């Protein structure tokens, strides 16, 4: 849209190239209409965006309706078992051809004039074709507009950018860490039922940052958990562990440690075995001591594994949640929250994990409630005019040194509580929104997120 072009990159965004390396982030990036327009034009139009988990469309014809930016996308498994994504827009007049969140369909028939598309996207039916079109319509060119997709470990991503680099390159080694969430066993994970969906007046970015490893908020935002005795830990050691990020890519993870925890504590026995088969020695070295792990795939997909229980003072089980912080306007999101369970686990274990997840997350979740309380308030405050020249403090770990002997990709730091990865996250974001349409986004332009003293 002509209403968004280089000229309209707000001053506070341009300023960020200088302030970010010094640990300052302009508050207004967390809620601004012009920023939202930039993100639609330059970020969600080019990044690999999460669409669905393969287990949501297990059978031929199964589909779910999802978003890339503000575009409705059909994710469907075709008759041959191949997963495809199409724009949910009839090519005749643009009517919505799929109206359900999920279902099964061999074809989509438009309810306006009846054009019919196979779930492969091919246009196969045009009423009165001979009578009114004669030669003038080439059906082959008018199928549903396809969306380029790729998958990793059950995750289906899509991008609107034909020039986008392959998903593997985009993930840039973060797969090493994703496996912890996605490979609890040789057969990986599945979703436990459809996601919980709701809307909130929060900017998506603060959520993505928080789940990028904000261990700093836990003892305060979720203080009730300590108060009621859900955590053995006093909060004293809560900051310990590792923070890892992929420079220039934005992806990041926090891995919390509590000294003296037994390996893989809190996982059901079956799952521990599964992980030992599915993970590499390096991955096991990194994750087996973890109390919890939380990470974000740039821009807006996050994962969390943490221990919790239905009542306080229990040993606690480790559940896994996957969440998408989907932007739906300036300072607005639509939330998708899934519980991932090990495909190989017995149903009783899956049920128990889901129920624990449910007490903590989802719109009524005891953790989720307080996170959204903070994020919605924060977004409102950062949307005010005075936020345009208000810099937020991102100083944690500015001068730290990365770990030398970290077995995984990316750069690792200790302790877990730090803001190094966040600076890389916002540097990556800045790189996208500063790169005009037509130019390629060059990861090497992202400034380093830390600078140890010489």
């Amino acid at each position, binding site marked *: 849209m002509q209403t968004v072009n280089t000229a309209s990159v707000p001053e506070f965004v341009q300023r960020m190239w200088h302030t970010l390396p010094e640990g300052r982030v302009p508050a207004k990036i967390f809620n601004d209409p012009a920023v939202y327009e930039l993100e639609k034009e330059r970020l969600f139009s080019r990044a690999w965006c999460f669409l669905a988990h393969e287990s949501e469309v297990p059978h031929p014809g199964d589909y779910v309706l999802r978003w890339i930016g503000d575009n409705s996308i059909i994710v469907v498994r075709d008759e041959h078992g191949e997963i495809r994504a199409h724009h949910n827009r009839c090519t005749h007049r643009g009517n919505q051809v799929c*109206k*359900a*969140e*999920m*279902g099964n369909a061999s074809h989509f028939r438009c309810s306006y004039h009846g054009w019919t598309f196979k779930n492969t996207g091919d246009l196969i039916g045009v009423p009165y074709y001979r009578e009114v079109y004669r030669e003038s319509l080439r059906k082959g060119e008018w199928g549903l507009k396809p969306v380029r997709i790729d998958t990793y470990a059950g995750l289906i991503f899509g991008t609107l950018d034909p020039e986008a680099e392959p998903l593997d390159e985009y993930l840039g080694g973060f797969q090493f860490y994703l496996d912890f969430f996605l490979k609890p066993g040789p057969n990986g994970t599945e979703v*436990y*039922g*459809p*996601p*919980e*969906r*709701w*809307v*909130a*007046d*929060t900017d998506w970015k603060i959520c993505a940052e928080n789940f990028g490893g904000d261990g700093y908020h836990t003892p305060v*935002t*979720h*203080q*009730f958990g300590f*108060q*009621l005795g859900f955590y053995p830990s006093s909060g004293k050691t809560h900051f310990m562990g590792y923070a890892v990020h992929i420079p220039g890519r934005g992806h990041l993870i926090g891995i919390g440690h509590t000294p003296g925890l037994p390996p893989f504590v809190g996982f059901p026995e079956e799952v521990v075995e599964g992980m030992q088969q599915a993970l590499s020695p390096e991955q096991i070295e990194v994750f087996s001591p973890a109390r919890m792990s939380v990470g974000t795939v740039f821009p807006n997909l996050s994962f969390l594994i943490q221990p919790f229980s*239905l*009542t*306080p003072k229990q040993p606690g089980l480790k559940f896994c949640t996957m969440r998408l912080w989907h932007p739906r306007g300036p300072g607005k999101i*639509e939330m998708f929250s899934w519980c991932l369970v090990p495909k190989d686990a017995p149903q009783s274990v899956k049920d128990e994990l*889901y*129920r624990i997840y*449910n*007490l903590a997350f*989802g*719109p*009524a979740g*005891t953790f*989720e*409630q*307080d996170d*959204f*309380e*903070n994020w*919605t308030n924060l977004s409102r405050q950062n949307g005010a005019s005075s936020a345009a020249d208000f810099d937020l403090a991102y100083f944690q770990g500015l001068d730290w040194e990365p770990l030398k002997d970290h077995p995984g990709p990316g750069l690792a730091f200790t302790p877990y509580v730090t803001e190094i990865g966040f600076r890389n996250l916002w540097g990556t974001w800045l790189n996208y929104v500063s790169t005009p349409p037509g130019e390629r986004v060059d990861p090497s332009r992202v400034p380093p997120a830390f600078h140890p003293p010489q």
Partner: protein
Amino acid sequence: METGAQPRTPPGVPRTAEIPPEVRESITDFLYYEADLLDERHYEEWVELFTDDARYEVPVRVTREKKAEWDVSPTARIIDDSKEMLQVRVARLNTEYAWAEDPPSRVRHFITNIRIHPGDTEGEYAVRYNVLIYRSRGELPRYEVLSGQRRDVLRETPDGWRIAYRQVILDQSVLATYNLSYFV
């Protein structure tokens, strides 16, 4: 397709005759009393209105085609609590750290369309009614309205009526609220 999840009471022809007036009245009073406890935030008293074996379910509602078998997910839940879990939520709300409810929401439960059927067990009744929930919070003029149907099983006890089962069918698939920090 019906919106119900199991167990559900079908609309069914009214069976007034079978329900003694005093039962209708006392169940009605009980539901209003319970709503008032919630809206006045007397959570401890409120949670004691559940039986020890109670279950409280808020299933996920999904937008499906008309011909689909269900639109109330048989698996996915927003809440799936035992009484102990409800007690955890109440205990949380009573800490100083339940940020989502400080300042507290202003909540009002509007209970209508109460229909009572004999339950499967002696002394139990299947009660199906509509609930409209109004909530505003903070110093913003905005408010939200949730709509749903509750499907309770109420049990008669020496202490009066108790909730043995509650299922709340909400009338949205993408909830128009940033959280459910209040009880529906």
